[in-house]
């Protein structure tokens, strides 16, 4: 960490000394590329970290530029200029946040539609800037923008830009190191799983986009005095496109890479554009190569060098207990009701008037042949499938057409049949996210303290499953059994009152199955939580539970103790032919 800080300081010093090592014109040029680099850093936060690609980032850059340009042209002094610059950051940030919230709230995942929307917005901005002559100066641009008062555009403005870059880099570095940054990786890796921990991922993504918009606005605000003119090109598609290329080529996973990309390509373009006609063809080839072979860009080529500048935070792993979960009738008797629940997918009815109620704690098992609708019942309960008819209530409140994060926040934890973890994160990072579930406040997302949180449940789970103690291992390298145990542990670390487990022993060896059964039985007894387990293996069912629900063709077929189920003629008929 100390070394990394030294390296960062050296880099900052080098940037500050640049005008003295070179000439002031080159420094002036460098200033522009550094501004573009700042915008590219914001793109890296969205794209490299959170996995969604903003394709119209010039829009926010251009808005910042026009706002600052208008303030400068009004000739106000520093007293008004500082708030004006703040507005030039805030307006793009709010706009980006609003767009992000609106779009991400409707669409999970990071598909191309968000990218196309940002692209269309940037084109819309370009067209508006072109036609609103009175405000923006139209096609010819907003011209004659004076420099910052008391600062020479060609000499000292450079230092202001470097200062702004240092500030934005430190800010973004903190955002990335804090729990917020780790959650963004989790969004990129497995957004749905994160929702089942109670995180409203659409807001996390919108916040990241807002931060990137604000940084772009700041860069734009400095661009106006730097260039003295702002044309519609500053909001347009072509600049947006180039910004993404610089980010990709420089390296989208860090903060130094995007700046390196913008500066390197900027200088090379300035030097080569006139002498080498195929220069931009060459840039395009490099870009294609990066996409195909080198997702980390130039930054990915020198990971060890870059790590010097982005050292790991010193985390106090001393073990602080997080604030306890809010009282929500904790561990009182569950009250879950399915009333004639119907779910259909296209023409097929998956659930057909499913009716049951669970009113006591302990372990309840759902069995039934493949395709009976067992997993769908859990899906509709947690908002993963839309409810067509009937109603579901949990502790008196309806959960009809809920959303996964709301179900999680009302105390329902879920583990899928196929282990669902964050493969690129380490085991301990996976665990941290689970401990944060339902506990982390918005303020704590930007504080380092939650990294030190630990709970009694975590201690117990580590004793039961030794693979959890190999914290530095990447979760993606775990075996199927270890993944199951990690996923199971993560589900319980959120300390839900209702635990839904979908075939927790699938893919486990006999020994691992025994461990898992023991863990479920012991934890269910200790925590007084309610468990609903889908299980195929009757042996497992018998060991865990005396209450069995049998499903068949989307409805409840039988409901009772194991002995009652065994004696039930309907169940016998359904299972005729199979051993289970």
């Amino acid at each position, binding site marked *: 960490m100390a070394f990394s800080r030294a390296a960062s300081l050296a880099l900052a010093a080098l940037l500050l000394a640049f005008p003295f090592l070179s000439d002031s014109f080159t420094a002036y040029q460098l200033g522009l590329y550094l501004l573009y680099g700042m915008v590219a850093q914001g793109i890296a936060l969205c794209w490299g970290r959170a996995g969604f690609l903003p394709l119209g980032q010039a829009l926010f850059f251009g808005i910042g530029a026009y706002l600052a340009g208008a303030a400068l042209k009004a000739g106000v002094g520093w007293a008004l200029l500082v708030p004006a610059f703040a507005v030039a950051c805030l307006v793009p940030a709010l706009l980006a946040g609003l767009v992000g919230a609106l779009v991400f709230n409707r669409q999970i995942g990071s598909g191309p539609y968000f990218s196309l929307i940002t692209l269309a917005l940037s084109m819309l901005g370009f067209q508006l800037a072109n036609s609103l002559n009175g405000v923006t100066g139209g096609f010819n641009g907003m011209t004659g923008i004076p420099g910052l008062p008391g600062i020479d555009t060609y000499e000292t403005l450079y230092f202001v830009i470097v200062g702004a870059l240092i500030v934005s880099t430190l800010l973004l570095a903190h955002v990335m190191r804090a729990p917020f940054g780790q959650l963004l990786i989790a969004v990129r890796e497995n957004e749905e799983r994160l929702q089942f921990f109670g995180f409203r991922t659409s807001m996390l993504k919108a916040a990241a986009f807002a931060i990137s918009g604000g940084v772009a606005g700041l860069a734009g605000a400095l661009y106006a005095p730097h260039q003295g003119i702002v044309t519609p090109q500053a909001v347009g598609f072509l600049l947006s496109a180039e910004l993404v290329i610089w980010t990709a080529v420089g390296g989208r996973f860090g903060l130094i890479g995007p700046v390196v990309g913008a500066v390197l390509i900027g200088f090379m373009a300035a030097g080569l554009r006139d002498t080498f006609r195929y220069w931009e063809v060459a840039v395009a080839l490099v870009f294609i190569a990066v996409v195909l072979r080198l997702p980390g860009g130039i930054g990915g080529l020198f990971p060890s060098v870059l790590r010097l500048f982005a050292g790991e935070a010193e985390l106090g792993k001393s073990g602080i207990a997080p604030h306890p979960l809010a009282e929500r009738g904790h561990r009182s008797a569950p009250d879950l009701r399915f009333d004639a629940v119907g779910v259909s997918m296209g023409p097929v009815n998956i659930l057909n008037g499913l009716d049951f109620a669970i009113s006591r704690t302990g372990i309840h098992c759902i069995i039934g042949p493949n395709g009976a609708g067992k997993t769908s019942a859990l899906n509709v309960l947690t908002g993963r499938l839309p409810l067509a008819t009937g109603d579901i209530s949990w502790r008196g409140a309806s959960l009809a057409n809920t959303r996964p994060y709301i179900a999680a926040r009302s105390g329902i934890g879920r583990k899928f049949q196929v282990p669902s973890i964050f493969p690129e994160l380490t085991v301990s990072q996976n665990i941290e996210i689970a401990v944060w579930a339902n506990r982390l406040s918005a303020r704590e997302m930007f504080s380092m303290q939650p990294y030190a949180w630990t709970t009694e449940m975590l201690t117990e789970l580590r004793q039961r499953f030794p693979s959890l103690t190999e914290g530095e291992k990447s979760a993606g390298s775990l075996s199927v059994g270890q993944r199951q145990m990690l996923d199971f542990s993560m589900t319980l670390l959120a300390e839900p009152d209702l635990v839904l487990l979908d*075939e927790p022993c699938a893919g486990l060896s006999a020994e691992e199955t025994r461990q898992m059964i023991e863990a479920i039985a012991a934890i269910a007894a200790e925590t007084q939580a309610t468990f609903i387990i889908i299980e195929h293996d009757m042996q497992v069912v018998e060991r865990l539970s005396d209450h069995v629900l049998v499903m068949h063709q989307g409805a409840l077929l039988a409901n009772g103790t194991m002995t009652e189920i065994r004696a039930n003629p309907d169940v016998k008929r359904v299972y005729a032919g199979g051993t289970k």
Partner: protein
Amino acid sequence: MSGAPLLSVENLSGGYGEIVVVNGFSLDLAGGEVACVTGRNGVGKSTLVRLVTGSLKPSSGRVVFRGRDLTAAPAHGRARQGMGYAPQEGVVFDNLTVAENLTLHHKDRSLERYGDLFTAFPRLSERLTQRAGTLSGGEKKILSFCRALAEDTVLVILDEPTEGVQPENIALMAEAIRRGKETGRAFLIVEQNLSLVEAVADAAYLLDHGECVYSTTERDGLRARLSERLQL
């Protein structure tokens, strides 16, 4: 049946990314034989099938079919060599008609190669012009079963063919498999329904954790032995 087996799976391993799901599985299958693979959910049965059909690349081991090493051959190449396959999920093309589902991989688009099967499953021949997406789950399974049993296949690979199928149709499936055996075809069937296994298997393999933990060619008391070993 003498000479080289029709299908030889040698020490086959594979999985998804870094995760090994099937570990060193071997079997030999001659024409006219039925091999059944069984095991609990999630032990790697479908992965094994996908490694044999070529949908998934193995990390080690060999697949030899009709005397040729097809380990590196793509899935469509294996199908053209005479492997018929009915997967566990995504069994038919919902957007195509029943007839198109049965003929799209044949140049002549003739339905004659399904003559016997249409007699066994008349519902299918009544619905030839209907979109397959409108069929019930069990009917889709039967459609997929029939496609895999077209006359030009020599090895039929079925992944849980009875899932969601009515008992009377399961009996018809078993009958069709027996008739297929008589014409010299080999079957590799992944199945949890032990009554089907008991009805058709010449050899049975029990898979656990991606490895074969038990195999037998003794038919007497087959079901009881498998059933006992399927428990913990």
